[in-house]
């Protein structure tokens, strides 16, 4: 079957001034992006920086596997273009722990909220965001977390959220 197109001809040297690179802070480090400003943050994190803890799971922000914090607030990295992320502070799962694990990560390990594990980075970021807003989350708050988990790890995630809330409030070690 013949193709309906020719190989691309050498484009005439359109001397368009390249756009100024976008500056972005990720896990406290400065980066620049000089590619397509419409590229979602997700692919900058994964393909460019190889911060692959932030996962791809859908194309419409629905699954939550790519959850990150932008200026401390929950965002879906697949739905944030680099032009919007620029100048902001992004925290990914790789940047959550300091010298020790973040209490939410600690709680996830304690309650073994893993299974296939693919969605858990996103679940952890969503829990960090929830517990920042609501140190004592109610059932409605927990139910409002939209992150999906195909394995059905929700029972462990529920327990881990409760435990993380305790740890963050410093109630029990």
């Amino acid at each position, binding site marked *: *079957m013949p*193709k*309906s*197109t020719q*190989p*691309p001809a050498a*484009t005439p040297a359109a001397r368009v001034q390249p756009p100024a690179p976008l500056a972005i802070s990720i896990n406290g480090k400065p980066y620049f992006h000089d*590619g*397509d400003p419409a*590229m979602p943050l997700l*692919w900058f994190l*994964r*393909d*460019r920086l190889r911060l*692959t*803890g*932030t*996962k*791809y*799971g*859908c*194309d*419409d922000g*629905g*699954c939550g*596997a790519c959850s990150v914090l932008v200026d401390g607030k929950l965002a879906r990295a697949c739905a944030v273009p680099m032009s919007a992320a620029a100048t902001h502070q992004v925290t*990914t*799962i*790789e940047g*959550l722990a300091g010298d020790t*694990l973040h209490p939410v*990560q600690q709680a996830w*390990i304690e309650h*073994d909220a*893993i*299974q*296939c*594990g*693919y*969605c*858990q*980075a996103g679940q*952890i970021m969503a829990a960090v965001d929830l517990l920042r807003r609501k140190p004592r989350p109610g*059932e409605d708050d*927990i139910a*409002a*977390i*939209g*992150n*999906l*988990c*195909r*394995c*059905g*790890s*929700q*029972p*462990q*995630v*529920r327990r881990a959220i409760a435990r993380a809330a305790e740890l963050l409030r410093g109630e029990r070690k």
Partner: protein
Amino acid sequence: MSTGIDHGRRRLLRIGLTATGALLVAPCAWADPTPNVPPELLGDDLTALGPFVRIERDSRVVIGAPACEVGQGVFTELPMLVAEELDVDWARVRVVQLPYGYVAADGGGDATLYGAQGPAATLPAALAQLRQAGASARWLLLQAAAREWNLPPEQLRTEAGTVVAGDGRTLSYGALVRSAATFTPPAQLPLKAASAYTRVGQPTSTADAQAIVTGARVYGIDTYGPDALVAVIARCPHLGGSLARFDDSAARKIAGVVEVLELPGADAAAAATGVVVLARHTWAALQGRAALVLEWQVPADAAATSSSALRASAHAALDGAGPGIVVRKDGDAARQRRRPARHRIEARYELPLLAHALMEPLNALVELKQDGARVVAALQDPDGASRLVARLTGLQRKDIAIELPRGGGGFGRRLDHDALTEAVLVAKAAGKPIKLMWTRGDDLQHDRYRPFAVHWLAASLDDHKRITAWTHHCAATPLDPATPNAGLLGAGDFPAGHVAHLEQVFHPLATRVPLAGGPWLDALRAFAVQCFIDELAVVSRQDPLRFRLAMLEATPPPAGTDADASARLARVLRECAARIDWSTPRSGGQGLGIACHALPGGCFAHAFEVSVDDGQLHIQRAVCVADIGRVINPLNTTQQLAGATLDGIAATLQQAITFKDARVQQRGLADYPLPRLGLSPRTTQVHVIASDQAAIDPAWAIASAGPALANAVYAATTVRVRKLPLLPELMRML
């Protein structure tokens, strides 16, 4: 290095020291990339991986995980068996994923030696082999200590990484490795009795949990070859269709797009079924694909492949259009059904196609060279994958290196090699290493789906509220035309044997839709049977639990029934009922539902407590009780059962794949909702009845979850939903 040859199992175990002085117990091929054993002993056939144990001089232990982890728990459970026999402190064990290996032929043909689904699916021989590896290493260490102390090895014992003498002296394993490597273990060592286990049977956390919660663990999609181009494919969305023409001029202008190719068919004669965009990074590949102008050759009969056509053909078959295949016939149910009875009822249940919808869509990294290939992909059947790559490339299987990253979900989808096939074909055509990625839309639209089924059930009950006639006709799309009813309607299905006049008839429905088996098949017929049992209980004003128990605990047990299987099923029902507090009546819009399901070797029961208010379904509690044989890691088993429960909830309430014009109508997860916290029960309780019988996969628990939930919804609302997904139907009917 010494080589221990186990002629009995034709396994070659190699004992040796690494360059850093660690003790290694591994199959030959692992101990040395160029094993100095005669090639005729190695053969040119591959089996799944053998075991791998390394003990460092500081007593740290590395155990290889031989199967690919996709969420079923093998990365932790299989090494636990090695650690158990080795007698080491699990806290000092590091588990590493082994690549798919090249080891001596094991008699050939054992396609998935290590569990495709989970440890329960792992062959007993493979489990025994892992335990032998641990026992062999322990034996070597005992010999070394015996030499050191000049004592007979029988007077020594091991405990948590040390050898202990009768007088209390101890030597750490690390101190013994140099000497241990000089011995050759016998082919077969005695293994521990279950009563002596210290690790197996203990709740054990996921071995790589820390890497997962910090984002460090590498999944298939996280693998980037040094020069690999990202490939995404625009596939023909119509089943049986092909590529008519396309315009890639816009796609090629996108920065980062390197090449656009027709998707080569598996053989030269095959028509292209898609267009591949190769790019330097994912976003460019996705943008490139979006910029393609595509025209598809839609098959002339596309309109015939639709969900409405499937429904029509199913109901026509059940209305008597065809004779069907008689699966079981006890007595004369048809005649009995025409007789006067206290109650006569019938119902039809309609269950949609479902998708696997793994969290991590399929992907594969393939690098082809003149003399070998490298494949990185989460594979549930790496053996089959190795054969496939050999066939597609002409390479020898020993020259195909397969690395197994963690996989974001399996559910049997990674038993298929469609993405891998594409990646190999594209890598060949492009002459470059390829990282093939499926998007969510690709995943939903090009899956192999759970069969579509409509069940017609009819029954009569006598004055004693007993079933006198039971007719079960199932019209469904077979997985394999040669065995059409396999997995869809079985002669042993409850309540067969408990009813004198029983008839099971299967009506195969032709379809072009590609299909897949697995535990979700059981969910099809369990939904129909367990909901219908509930309907019979309601109509005859009986307690649904006691109604089931009366059949299962009838004395004497009906001839031809398996009394032990009935007792086990009754037991899980009773346990489940006790845990949901079945005997306490609920009020205020609360409803309880229960269901059970048996398969060879095990059984499950579920109970739910739900309420429906303001058009919202609330699941307060879920209880799952499972009788599933041997359990290696109770923590994992519990999670798998809870997971199957959630899977059952999501599938029953919300999920359906529908076709129109031979094309899937669902495009994303908004159209095909997966479990989330808001859908999960406030509390989920799991109880495992373990035994020393052969293990069965906890994933089968999905079967009883759906009907128990639907029965609870009926109890709460008196609305009986017989067509899934349940939620939209319920909202329509309320």
